[in-house]
């Protein structure tokens, strides 16, 4: 379920109705929480809208462009007169906020991907070695660990 209600509107509406608010876990599982507990759940990483890969991507890209533009304006203002005047301070604040907004969107994007999409698994690799007592030992290990096992005397099958 997608929601495009602003935070302010949502809070106002639920407080007046005394109802429950739908929040989403990073893996998109929806939960209902009391309106007066929304802040607590938001701090725990829940969001008001479900993760949407396309929407999150475009949001992040748009904010990246906005951050770039804010940075350019800040630098141009300083360069123009060689001074940090009040307008430049304001431009810096805008740039700081733009980058923070971008970072927030970026964190939500990659976190959403990691939580909502399965990680591709590689098949395990079998390794073997002759133990001190002459017995043959065999293990199935993660491929990324193969160099360590080879270093320890194991051989890949």
């Amino acid at each position: 379920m997608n929601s495009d209600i602003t935070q302010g509107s949502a809070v106002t509406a639920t407080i007046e109705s005394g109802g429950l608010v739908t929040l989403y876990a990073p893996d998109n599982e929806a939960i209902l929480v009391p309106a007066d507990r929304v802040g607590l759940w938001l701090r725990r990483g829940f969001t008001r809208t479900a993760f949407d890969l396309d929407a999150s991507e475009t949001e992040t890209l748009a904010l990246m462009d906005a951050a770039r533009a804010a940075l350019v304006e800040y630098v141009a203002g300083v360069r123009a007169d060689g001074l940090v005047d009040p307008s430049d301070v304001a431009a810096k604040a805008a740039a700081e906020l733009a980058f923070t907004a971008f970072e927030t969107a970026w964190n939500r994007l990659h976190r959403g991907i990691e939580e909502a999409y399965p990680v591709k698994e590689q098949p395990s690799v079998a390794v073997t070695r002759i133990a001190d007592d002459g017995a043959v030992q065999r293990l199935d290990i993660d491929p990324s660990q193969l160099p360590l096992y080879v270093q320890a005397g194991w051989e890949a099958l």
Partner: protein
Amino acid sequence: MTTLYDPHLGRIHLPLLGRSVSYAGRGVKPAYGELGIFVAKLRKPVYQEDGVILKYVTEWASITHNERVDAGAAQQAKQVFGGSGSPGAPSATVYPKVIAVASASLTKAKGDQSLGSTSSGVTTNEFTTIGLSRVAANTPVGGDYTAPSSLGGTFSQVLAKTFTASGSGTAFGAGVFDSTTAAGSTLYVEDNFSSSAVLVSGDQLTITITITN
């Protein structure tokens, strides 16, 4: 503290940014003044096969700092401290709360009384149609105001509104007025977006203005 009240990302806090001033024979000290930020987003609808809007996606964003004009400064002083003269004594109903969208790139000046114009009550650079006409911001709710974090610190107040375009147009910036009626209204702040937003019917333009003082 500056707080970005983003309807899609949530509340984003920014530590207070200060600048320093120094005078001959005196130490350097922090100086804070009026500071505000305009955040605008263009969100386009994504439709289902049956024509129902499935969701909105953000395709453009702009984050810039605002420009308070002389008229806005005067009104702020009158609203806080009262007194006579234009714009008159404090009013319970007339105060900066209306957001207007610029239909042309603004040449900003401290003496502006309308968007990009020193003339009062004109809409030369302002949308008056296609759903982008000036309108009161969302009714402030708890949380739109962020109190100072220390004695003598700054506060921030958020004004936000989502416009839905009913036609095609290009938005260049925005401003805050004290009335939905152009004639006799007072401009508080104005700003150009970092780039223009091209809208078609059904698009949403979300404008969030954070005033820090």
